[in-house]
């Protein structure tokens, strides 16, 4: 949908007119990220992370294509080809570090983007489809990142592949054949490495496709905003260009500084030393952990230490780990609140800041810690809260809490008054 006051694309140059008739790509861009897209004027910096996530995807695709030019997906040489890239290819070290740290940057940005959504109720109607597509993107990102981490064929690559495919082995009846099918063998080897490389190259483009749908779905109701009040009139919005182009532009600068600092000065800080040891199927590293962005879910997996009635602990862990993300799909229907933004939902806000955020912090921490006490007990409590938050607390709180009074419009929230509000019938 476009708002009635949104500017219309009017090409002046004859070539652009000709183009507009044959293939209106400039019009599409104008209406998507140009002057034709009207955006709430009151977006805060949390709204920059969508754009930054798009930038991260581009960084990963570009550096990834370069890495693939020098890589060979064969267990005998995979590790060596990466070292050769780093040592002998012009700027190879830069591409390797940018690609490895780019994955981390992507997840930092995406976690902030997701939690922005939790707090401000971005998943609520009419943006359910935006949210659902976003969760799909997150799942695809996890799959891509996991398979990418296997490619260097270091110790963590190998054991990561073995352990994560082992999760599928927990599924009753079909587990073991399924695991063998995924790996193309009894353990990770050439077959697995080759298919992971193939899929690791494919999935980013699938992500790109879903990102386009995600933005398309977003542009139908238009962007949400920190008050959660829908756009009412022209004074509520500014055109994307130049206002948000300028704001995203300088946010990119800040992001680039932090990213460059990591790539050039701490390139291995987020990696694991064991992945600089070539894969050895005969010896497991003492402390195996996935990359940091999987830690919360890894902690949930490990939190289930006891069989629950007839369900084995291993299967419970796998169910819970996948369930922890799948539950996000149901959020638009679990949250019954008439109000969108957490800023006007006093009870929900407390659960968000003092419940969900600390629980996630504990899960992050414990997922990276050894599988020993007290970390397991901490992650059990945190995981318990995590499930309770989304499946029990949110549906109940959203139904019974009394929200704070909302501003009439974005204009009123920003300027203190909105002349139209005085004309409108009181709600």
């Amino acid at each position, binding site marked *: 949908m476009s708002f009635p006051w949104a500017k219309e694309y009017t090409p002046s140059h004859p070539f652009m007119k000709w183009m507009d008739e044959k293939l209106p790509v400039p019009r599409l861009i104008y209406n998507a990220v140009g002057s034709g897209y009207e955006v709430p004027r009151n977006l805060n910096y949390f709204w920059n992370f969508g754009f930054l996530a798009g930038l991260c995807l581009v960084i990963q695709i570009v550096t990834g294509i370069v890495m693939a030019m020098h890589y060979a997906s064969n267990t005998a040489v995979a590790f060596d080809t990466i070292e050769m890239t780093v040592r002998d290819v012009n700027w190879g070290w830069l*591409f390797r570090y940018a690609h490895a740290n780019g994955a981390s940057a992507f997840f930092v940005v995406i976690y902030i983007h997701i939690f922005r959504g939790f707090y401000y109720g971005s998943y609520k109607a009419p943006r359910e489809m935006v949210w659902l597509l976003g969760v799909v993107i997150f799942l695809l990102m996890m799959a891509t990142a996991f398979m990418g981490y296997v490619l260097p064929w270091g110790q963590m690559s190998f054991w990561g592949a073995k352990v994560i495919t082992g999760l599928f082995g927990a599924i009753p009846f079909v587990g073991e054949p399924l695991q063998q099918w995924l790996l193309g063998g009894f353990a990770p080897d050439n077959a697995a490495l080759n298919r992971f490389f193939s899929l690791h190259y494919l999935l980013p483009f699938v992500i790109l496709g879903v990102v386009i749908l995600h933005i398309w779905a977003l542009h139908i109701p238009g962007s949400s905003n920190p008050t959660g009040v829908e756009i009412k009139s022209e004074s509520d919005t500014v055109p994307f260009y130049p206002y948000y182009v300028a704001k995203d532009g300088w946010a990119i600068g800040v992001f680039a500084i932090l990213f460059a600092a990591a790539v050039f000065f701490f390139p291995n800080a987020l990696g694991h030393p064991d992945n600089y040891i070539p894969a050895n199927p005969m010896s497991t590293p003492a402390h195996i952990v996935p990359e940091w962005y999987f830690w919360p879910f890894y902690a949930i997996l490990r939190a289930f230490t006891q069989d629950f009635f007839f369900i084995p602990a291993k299967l419970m862990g796998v169910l819970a780990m996948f369930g922890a993300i799948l539950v996000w799909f149901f959020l638009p229907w679990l949250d019954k609140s008439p109000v969108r933004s957490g800023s006007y939902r006093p009870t929900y806000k407390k659960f968000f800041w003092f419940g969900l955020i600390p629980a996630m912090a504990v899960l992050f921490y414990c997922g990276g810690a050894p599988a020993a006490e007290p970390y397991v007990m901490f992650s059990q409590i945190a995981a318990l809260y995590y499930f309770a938050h989304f499946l029990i607390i949110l549906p109940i709180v959203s139904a019974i809490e009394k929200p704070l009074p909302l501003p009439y419009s974005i204009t009123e929230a920003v300027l203190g008054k909105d002349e139209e509000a005085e004309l409108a019938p009181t709600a």
Partner: protein
Amino acid sequence: MAEEDGVRRRDFINIAAVSAAGVAGVGVVIPLVSQMSASADVLAASSTEVDISAIQPGQAIKAVFRKQPVFVRNLTPKEIEEANAVDVASLRDPQTLAERTKEGKENWLITMGVCTHLGCVPLGAGEGENRGEFGGYFCPCHGSAYDTAARIRKGPAPKNLEVPAYEFTTDTVVKIG
């Protein structure tokens, strides 16, 4: 006046910011282009030593230089005579045999085994291969024929077979590259 200056100053900042983004874009392109050129390990492996002691007059061997064949031929006196008998001015790529060999070692003809037309490997270095109507090398891809000094005589190739940089480290060892 003041207002106008203000407007100009503000425009200047926007232009400067966009320019900086442009510079960053160019800065990113440099490594992107550069990474595709030959890497250090490839460049390092660019010289080859060949032992020529076993090559009898009239024989040739194929060695490998920069992942491409190089022909090392021990010319017979008859072949040298044939090469010198040619009127250089009549050649497509005029060169004498002396210009294509080292002084005092005129019987050692060392050339790349890469046809100057489109890069096929000409026949003639192996025992019993078709050496073409000029008795040197013959490229089967598009019919280029080279003479006993590996000069182009017939067919589409524009140049003589290339003579790589080389030197005799001893009487029996040649270092190519």
